[in-house]
Structure formats: structure tokens, C-alpha cells
């Protein structure tokens, strides 16, 4: 890894090095003095801001957001959010999060790490045993090269301190706190997340991910990510990782804001595999300007309830938006996932492809919106959502909303719901595949069109995850 920009610097190589190097390299913080208490009020929000040493504008933004949060009703759509907002720690200093030991991590999670072959160092990070992930050694050269090109890549807390101009221009502008109750909550108590700025014309050839940041804070409950892709620039960001994310806190509510300026390209890939107790309520939105391209690739597994509808607002002619979404709902899980496309200018085009799988009583819903603003002539959108239901106890729903305020447009919508066919199973079994193998293969085939869009390593992990999810599902 001399420059980190050549073809050979695949993520897989990086991962394996990470495993080696980080054995020795965890940073040990001295324990923090601050002890947060449960609950949410103005004094806690101020305290969070103060602890982070934030400027007044951010503190005021947080306090304002808290008021909005308190005034907003719970969303009436999606799933039931059974959360007592006063019974949650809204901010834990890294040192406190680190209090947990490896022994406390549930066996099921450890087993899954084994099956996925996640390196030791990452396991501890992912399960919250280690809060900080010293990546300087591994990614030093990448960081250097990015810096040379003028790319900014830090955690968002650092960005507030070091890049106030950019932050004040964009932070909370794409998704204002007034957008929805959970966006307001995140705006009040956010911590961590990534900040990326890609300057004009700079194309980053390999996928960026949080690991590359120096001193990344642990995947927080209320992450806040902001990505600015300047004119003609290009970036692919990969969020999180496919390992099961285990956390003792049950509410996770992230906000991701993206701006793609004229001629820019941004692809944002997420595969999340939450533990079964998690409420994962995420707001993701991108503003795409002239002739730019924004793609969301969003995979959701696990969690108790996920509500997530990545959006692309196409603001100027020639903007394109594409959202590929995969949801897998198993026992006790409700995936309310989907997408939003807003055509706010003429000659914009969008595409939504959603695939959901439900089994063992799980529930997968597609909830999507295509909106064409008045004057957005010659806009094109297509929506395809396919659901696969593995047994009679499981459920799939489709809630497609279409709002068209312009005549001269072309909008297509196709939806299908299917069960694993007895005939297909029989065909595969007649060739020696067990029923479980055959079902897994059919499910794998069902999501194949989306999985092949993933970077290689993630595609492999995604398939392994599906295999894990399918285990013991039949028989």
C-alpha cells in the first residue's frame, strides 16, 4: 500500500491489514469525568454541546432542534416506536462506552463474527467493546493522498471545529430539524458520523469508509453525516459494515445529508445488520444539481424496527437519482424501508428498485414517494418493487405514493409479491440441494440484481449474511 490509490488497494486487503495492525494499536483514553444522565432536556443538550467544545451557533442549533423535537408528534406511518425518550442516555463519552467487556457481548453476536470472519480488532470495535479505532497506521498514506487532493474527511465533530464555513453553509440545510421528529432529535443530540468534502473535479477512485478516518468515534446512536461533492467531483462512500451491530442502547437515529453539485457523482452504500432490539430510524437525503448523479444503495437486515427512506431531490435539469434498497425481515423484525424521489426541475430522471424478503413472521414494507413538482417537464421515474415472502406467517406491504403536478412526464411503477415457489424448490432439490440450500439459493437469486451493484467484498458479505439469516428457516 504505497499510495493506496492503485488497483491493488482493495478493501479486502485493507481489512486484513487492519486485523493485523490494530492488535497493538488501540488507543486508550483516560476515563472521562463527565457522566451523562438519562433523559432529555435543554440542560443535557447544552451539556453535550459544551463537552464537545462547540461554537455557539451549533449549541443554539441543538437547543432549537430540541424544541422542535418536543413539539412534533410521532410519525403516524411506519411501525410502532415503543420508546421512552426519557429512559435513554443521549451522550456517552467514548470512555464510558468502552466500559463494556468482550464477555458481555452475546454469544450469538460472537458466533456471527466467526462466521463472517471479521478480524478480532474489528469485532471489538463493532460490538462496542472498543470505542475508538486507531486507523492512522493503516490509512496514513490514504489520508495523505486525500489531503493532497484537498479532500476533507473527518468525523463531523472535528469538522464543526475545523471547517466551520462549510458546516454553517450546509449542516442542517438539506434535512432541517423541522423535517421530522427523529431528524429533530438527531439534530439536538447528534454525535459522530462522517464529514466529507470532495473539491471540484476530484474523483476518488476507491470507496471511502469510516475506517479511513483518523480516530473515528464509535458508531454512535445519533450519527450525523454530511457529504459535499463539488462540481464534477466523484465519491463512493460505504457506511458501516455488514457485521451485526450490537449495542446496549435501543434507539439509533442517524441523519445523512448530501449535496452533489453540477456534474458530480455520489454513491452511498450502506449495509446494516442490527441486533434485534434496535429501533433504527434514519433520515437520508441528497440534493442533486445539474447533470449530477446520486445513488443510494441501502441494505437493511435485523433491528426491531427500521424506518428508512433515502431520498434524492433533483434540483436542476439533468440531475439523476437512483435508489436500490434491499430489506430482510425475520422474526420480530419490521423493515419499513423505501425511497423518495423528488423531481424539482425539468429533464430529471430517477429510478427506485426495491427488493424485500420476509420470513419467520417478519414484516417488510416498501414505502416510497415519487413527486414531480410543477414545471418539471420531461421528467422520468421508474419504480420497481419486488417482495418475496418465505412462509405464511410473514408479511409484505407496499405503500407507493405518487404525486405528479406536471403533465409532460413519464412515471412507471411495477410491484410484485411472490412466494418461494414449490416448483422452484423441487427443481433445485431434484438436483441434490437440501431444502435450506435451495431456499437460500432462490433468495440469493432474488436479490442478485442489487448485490451485484455492491463492491466485491460487500457483495460476498451480503451473500453470507443472507445465508446466516436463512439458516434454520426451513425444516
Amino acid at each position, binding site marked *: 500500500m504505497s499510495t493506496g490509490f492503485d488497483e491493488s488497494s482493495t478493501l479486502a486487503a485493507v481489512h486484513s491489514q487492519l486485523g493485523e495492525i490494530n492488535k497493538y494499536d488501540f488507543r486508550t483514553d483516560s476515563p472521562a469525568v463527565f457522566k451523562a444522565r438519562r433523559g432529555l432536556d435543554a440542560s443535557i443538550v447544552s451539556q453535550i454541546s459544551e463537552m464537545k467544545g462547540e461554537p455557539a451557533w451549533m449549541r443554539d442549533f441543538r437547543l432549537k432542534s430540541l424544541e422542535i423535537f418536543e413539539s412534533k408528534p410521532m410519525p403516524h406511518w411506519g411501525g410502532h416506536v415503543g420508546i421512552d425518550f426519557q429512559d435513554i442516555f443521549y451522550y456517552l463519552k467514548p470512555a464510558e462506552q468502552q466500559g463494556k467487556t468482550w464477555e458481555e457481548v452475546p454469544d450469538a453476536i460472537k458466533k456471527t463474527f466467526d462466521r463472517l470472519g471479521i478480524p478480532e480488532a474489528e469485532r471489538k470495535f463493532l460490538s462496542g467493546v472498543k470505542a475508538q479505532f486507531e486507523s492512522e497506521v493503516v490509512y496514513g498514506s490514504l489520508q495523505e493522498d486525500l489531503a493532497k487532493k484537498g479532500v476533507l474527511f473527518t468525523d463531523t465533530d472535528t469538522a464543526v471545529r475545523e471547517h466551520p464555513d462549510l458546516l454553517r453553509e450546509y449542516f442542517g440545510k438539506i434535512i432541517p430539524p423541522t423535517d421530522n421528529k427523529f431528524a429533530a432529535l438527531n439534530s439536538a443530540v447528534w454525535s459522530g458520523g462522517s464529514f466529507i468534502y470532495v473539491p471540484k473535479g476530484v474523483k476518488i477512485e476507491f470507496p471511502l469508509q469510516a475506517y479511513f478516518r483518523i480516530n473515528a468515534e464509535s458508531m454512535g446512536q445519533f450519527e450525523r453525516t454530511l457529504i459535499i461533492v463539488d462540481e464534477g467531483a466523484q465519491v463512493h462512500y460505504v457506511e458501516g459494515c455488514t457485521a451485526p451491530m450490537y449495542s446496549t442502547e435501543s434507539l439509533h437515529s442517524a441523519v445523512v445529508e448530501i449535496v452533489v453539485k453540477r456534474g458530480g457523482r455520489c454513491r452511498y452504500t450502506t449495509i446494516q445488520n442490527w441486533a434485534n432490539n434496535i429501533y433504527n430510524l434514519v433520515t437520508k437525503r441528497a440534493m442533486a444539481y445539474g447533470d449530477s448523479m446520486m445513488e443510494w444503495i441501502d441494505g437493511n437486515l435485523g433491528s426491531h424496527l427500521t424506518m428508512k427512506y433515502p431520498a434524492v431531490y433533483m434540483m436542476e435539469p439533468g440531475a439523476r437519482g437512483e435508489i436500490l434498497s434491499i430489506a430482510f425481515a425475520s422474526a420480530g423484525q419490521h423493515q419499513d424501508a423505501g425511497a423518495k424521489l423528488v423531481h424539482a426541475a425539468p429533464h430529471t430522471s430517477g429510478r427506485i428498485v426495491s427488493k424485500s424478503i420476509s420470513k419467520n413472521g417478519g414484516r417488510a414494507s416498501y414505502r416510497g414517494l415519487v413527486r414531480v413538482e410543477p414545471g418539471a417537464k420531461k421528467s422520468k421515474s421508474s419504480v420497481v418493487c419486488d417482495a418475496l415472502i418465505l412462509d405464511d406467517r410473514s408479511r409484505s406491504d407496499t405503500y407507493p405514493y405518487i404525486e405528479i403536478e406536471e403533465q409532460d412526464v413519464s412515471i412507471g411503477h411495477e410491484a410484485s409479491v411472490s412466494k418461494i415457489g414449490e*416448483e422452484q424448490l*423441487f*427443481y*433445485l*432439490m*431434484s*438436483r441434490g440441494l437440501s431444502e435450506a440450500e435451495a431456499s437460500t439459493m*432462490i433468495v*440469493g437469486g432474488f436479490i442478485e440484481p442489487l448485490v451485484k451493484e455492491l463492491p466485491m467484498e460487500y457483495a460476498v458479505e451480503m451473500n453470507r449474511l443472507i*445465508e446466516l439469516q436463512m439458516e434454520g428457516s426451513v425444516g
Partner: protein
Amino acid sequence: MTHAAKETLVVSNLHVSVDGQEILKGVNLEIGRGEIHALMGPNGSGKSTLGYAIMGHPSYEVTSGTIELVDADGTRHDILAMEPDQRARAGVFLAFQRPMSIPGVRLADFLRHAVTNVRNPDRKEGHELMPMRDFRTELKSKMGELSMDTEFARRYVNDGFSGGEMKRAEILQLAMLRPKFAVLDETDSGLDADAVRLASESIARIGGAEMGILIITHHEQLLEHNIPLKTHVMLGGKIVESGGPELAQELHKRGYERIRAAYPEAAAAEKAMEESARAVSV
């Protein structure tokens, strides 16, 4: 009962129903390894049903009778107690009249699983697959013998295949899995003249002296290189007559009138089946 000196697939007095409707009404058949049998009969007489019952399709309920694999030493294995995948691992194969498409699953991936399981009958899920390199080499050579482009293995199983491509893919699976007993259900339909000849030669080569094959067909060409030891005629859910290769030729030339006249009971059953099928579709 014969005491075969070679492994045999034995179907005795088999009755099969679909949705409570009896289709097979007492079928008897014995095929030894290395033997080729032809099964003919008018449309709807129950030929495919026999194939499905042998392979274990869940919609085809065996109400009485047996299907067994009998080893050379006389040991009997009850096929009916096995799931379809266990039957495959025991050496039974069905080339489908209408193969299912499995979108998103590449033919090569599917075949690698199939071959691994069939060759290691005790393999558990998640255990290692046949080494990629060995598999590829073998697949490539088999595809070559069938004049198939290796790129074809990257396509999704039967998804958008032409009729001929589907049948060729079934023969490829036969070649890779090398079962002890194979039912080929109209593997010649949908093939052009050259392809039928190629299929006929390939099946003869793949089958060799090791495989017992039941060829279900409405044509003669497949039997050119696969001269049947016996030809069976099914009518109204029963095998009513068996003979040599000349019987196949006769049926092909003259149709089933003589048969219907000779076996009025089966002909009546055929009529009844047709009527009930019509009743269902109305």
C-alpha cells in the same frame, strides 16, 4: 420378483394422485443399470406424472405401491421415504419436460452445489463445495462435448433460455451428475433436427453401460442412438403394453388406435381423466 444381478429401479403397482384425482393407476416397471427403456403414450396419459413421482414432487401423492432401488446383492432402498434431494444423492435424476427458471442464480453456481452434494451424499449445508478449479475444468469439457459455449454457464438457470437451450442445459446436468437412473421427459422436444441428433449421441455417450434410462418421447430420433431394450406404452395411467424397439416405431407410424382398441378399460380411464381435467379447467 427378479433377482437382478445389477442395480435396479423397481416401480410396483404405483398409484399416484394429484389434488385427490388419481392419475397413475397401478404402474409396474423395472429398469436395470445400463438399460434403456422408452416410455410412450398419448398426451395426458401420465408419463410426466411417473417421472415426478419417481423424483418425489410434493404435489404428486403416492397413494399405494412402491418405488425402490435394489442393489446388486438384493438390498432394497425405499425411495418413497426420501426427500427429492436424498433421491438425487441416491442416484436418481429427472430431466424436466418443462424446467423451472430460477432468476438470479447462475447455472454454474447451482451446478457446483448439485455436483458437490450428489458426489458427497452426506455433505451438510455450509460444508465445502467441490474445488472451483476442478469444477470449472469438468464443466468446460462437458459443455464442449455438448457444443455449448462456456459463457452459457454464467446465465441464470433457465431464465430466458430458449426451448432448445433449456433441454441442452438438462442434458448438461445429466452429464455432470452422472446418476444411476435417469428419467428423460421429452428431452427431445423443442430441439431442432441437428440438436436432436447431438442430444441423441450425447445421451448414448453419457449413459454408457452404467446408467439406467427411461426415455419419455413422442419421437423416434432420440431412440436412434439409444436403442431401447424395451418400449412401454402408457394409456389412462397404466402401462398397458411393453415390447421391443419395433413397438416404438409402430406407435410412431400408426399412433395409438390399435392400443386403445386392444385395451378398452385403459381407454375408458383415459376418457374419464380427460373429462375430469376439462371439468377442472371450466
